[in-house]
């Protein structure tokens, strides 16, 4: 190691130490815990090192339900949120009155506590005197037990989560929109290109990197969903029997309420692998493209 690189590592050291202590160590420890049968967090004792926790995990119907629910959640919330926020961001970026006001309004959910939002949505979705059923009533629909009927638990959760995740996406999309060169639009105007064509041929391609980013972050966050469930169902995981339980909710429940530390750790490892897998898949198109470009050169 020469002197220059030593200096570099010295600069990195504080961050590295913090990451080792607070990220790498717990990660390794959790992986270790997941293989310990009957692990006790209190004194670190365990019965043996085996796959018992993973066996229990996949034998537990509740975990299977959590896996299914989380997958459903990711599959709906992320694409819906990205598409809707793309549309809203475009509308906000056009020359409308009170643009600043609207931008602030759409950004509010991001800076508001999810617990507070949950309280409001519990009222909106109340089957007896909720705003949503009131409005649907005009169209002759309902009343629907959004939060009381187990059938609608996941639907309600997804609606709530899409709305909540719009804010962040809109903000980054707006920033990206403003970064697109006006020349491109001017050229399109000269050719009198239809608006929809402008959107798909100029706006979307120019925003592709940021859309990809929104997808990756959205999926990672969606896999970790917990707060939304907790706040919408008032510190439960569904109206009757955990209808809307998610993986993180399951892990938390096993750890803090059922004192099953090993199973909770095993659940975390499964979640870790899932997120890793999805992130890998998402990076595939980019890598293929990079390879193609390299080949062309």
């Amino acid at each position: 190691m020469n002197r220059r690189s030593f200096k570099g590592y010295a600069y990195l050291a504080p961050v590295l130490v913090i990451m080792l202590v607070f990220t790498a160590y717990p990660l390794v420890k959790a992986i270790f815990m997941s293989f310990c049968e009957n692990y006790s967090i209190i004194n670190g004792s365990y019965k043996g090192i085996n796959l018992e926790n993973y066996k229990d995990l996949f034998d537990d119907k509740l975990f299977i339900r959590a896996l299914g629910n989380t997958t459903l959640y990711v599959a709906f919330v992320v694409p819906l949120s990205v598409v809707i926020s793309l549309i809203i961001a475009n509308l906000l970026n056009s020359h409308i009155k009170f643009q600043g006001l609207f931008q602030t309004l759409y950004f509010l959910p991001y800076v508001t506590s999810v617990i507070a939002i949950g309280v409001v949505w519990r009222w909106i979705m109340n089957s007896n005197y909720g705003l949503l059923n009131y409005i649907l009533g005009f169209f002759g629909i309902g009343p629907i037990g959004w939060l009381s009927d187990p059938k609608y638990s996941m639907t309600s959760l997804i609606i709530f989560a899409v709305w909540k995740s719009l804010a962040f996406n809109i903000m980054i999309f707006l920033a990206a929109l403003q970064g697109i060169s006006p020349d491109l639009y001017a050229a399109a105007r000269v050719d009198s290109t239809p608006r929809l064509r402008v959107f798909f041929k100029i706006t979307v391609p120019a925003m592709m990197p940021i859309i990809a980013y929104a997808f990756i972050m959205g999926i990672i966050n969606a896999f970790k969903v917990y707060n939304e469930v907790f706040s919408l169902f008032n510190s439960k995981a569904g109206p009757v029997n955990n209808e809307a339980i998610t993986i993180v909710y399951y892990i938390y429940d096993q750890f803090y309420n059922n004192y099953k530390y090993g199973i909770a750790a095993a659940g975390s490892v499964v979640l870790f692998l899932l997120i890793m897998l999805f992130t890998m898949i998402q990076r595939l198109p980019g890598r293929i493209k990079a390879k193609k470009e390299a080949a062309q050169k």
Partner: protein
Amino acid sequence: MKMKRIMALVMASIMGASLLTACGGSGGSTETTTAAAAAAGSEKDIQPTTITFWHGMNNKQEQSLTELTEKFNAENEYGITVELVNQGSYSDLQTKLMANAAADTLPDIAQAYNNYFTDYVDKVVALDDFVKNDYPDWDDILESYRTENSEYGKITGVPFNKSTYLFFYNKTMFDELGLEAPKTWDDLQHIGEVILEKKGLAAIGYDSMCDMLEAALRQHGEQYVDETGALFNTDGGLETLEFIMNMYNSGYARLVGEDNYFSDSLSNGMIGGYVGSSTGVSYISTDIEGKEFELGVCPVVGDKTNAAYNAGTNIVMFAKDANNQKAAWEYMKFMTSKESTIKWAMDTGYLPIRTSAYESDEYKAFMEGDITAQAAYEQAPYGFVSKASFTGSNEIRNVVSTTLNELITDKADAQTALDTLVAAVNDVLK
């Protein structure tokens, strides 16, 4: 290049799995803290010290706790200062205690339910010697509380904020329909029939489903659950579930649904009555415009026998230092004294923990004007506390509640309900 890519992937995934950090925690210390309590009583040499007390009390409860503690700090002769630390809600308190048990950094004393420390009961100081040598009137404390605090085979705490489940009802509606406060299961069924027929409403709700089941089983002379599994797979258990499922399947009783607690439903005239905690009475509004009513409160019904569910935490000791243990004990004695428990009960709506406090002129005068306190006093002799001193007790509470919810939603018959519940409980303990 490839390495970099893998690193990036791992980093992204780590971000995703950063919740793992919550599960970290140290596992080092295995030392036990059943430190023998110093033989007090004779001569005390307590050095001035500061005791930390973790609690989950808020609003007027916290205010009363602060007043009592300040009084203790000012008046005790040893220079003991008790420092109150509010940890938020019960569930926050529970998780923080667990994390600190793992890190071996527990406070000197804390509020706790017995099922908080099933995994670290060896860190709870045994109070037997303190009670024997330095607690003149232990028998004055209500029996169910003494039993609860001795469940682990040692005295693990002193009772503190105690409540009981009572039947709250819309007296205006009951009077109008010629109904009286229920005393038996048959009364309850009759009330259900009348209110459903005349008002189209459910008559009864239960804030806590697992506690409802245990109370009903005990009222029918049956047992609930212990460390060996479900004890109600009997004829009596089936009869109990027949009664419960009939109440729900006929529409006499209903689940809380999307309301937080039945106090909301009662306030809005959407249910005849409900069984809930005596401390929840402050959440009942009897004066919502157009829905005004007079509130009625009575003890929960009985069947073959009476049984009323008691709730509320105890104060437990984790202090390791012998001097701190002695100092904490002084505080625990103070908080459970007759004077303190009376003040505490009158301030907060919790119940006195001593027979002598119930019988004091001061508290009797208070009860005159407080129907909730009267009803609680009436059922105090047959109160019980659910057994919680075994691994899995906390999980069973949750499993029984959610399973019952599901059975009721599915309109299951009694036999199915019994079989499903027994299997669910035994599955936790297997």
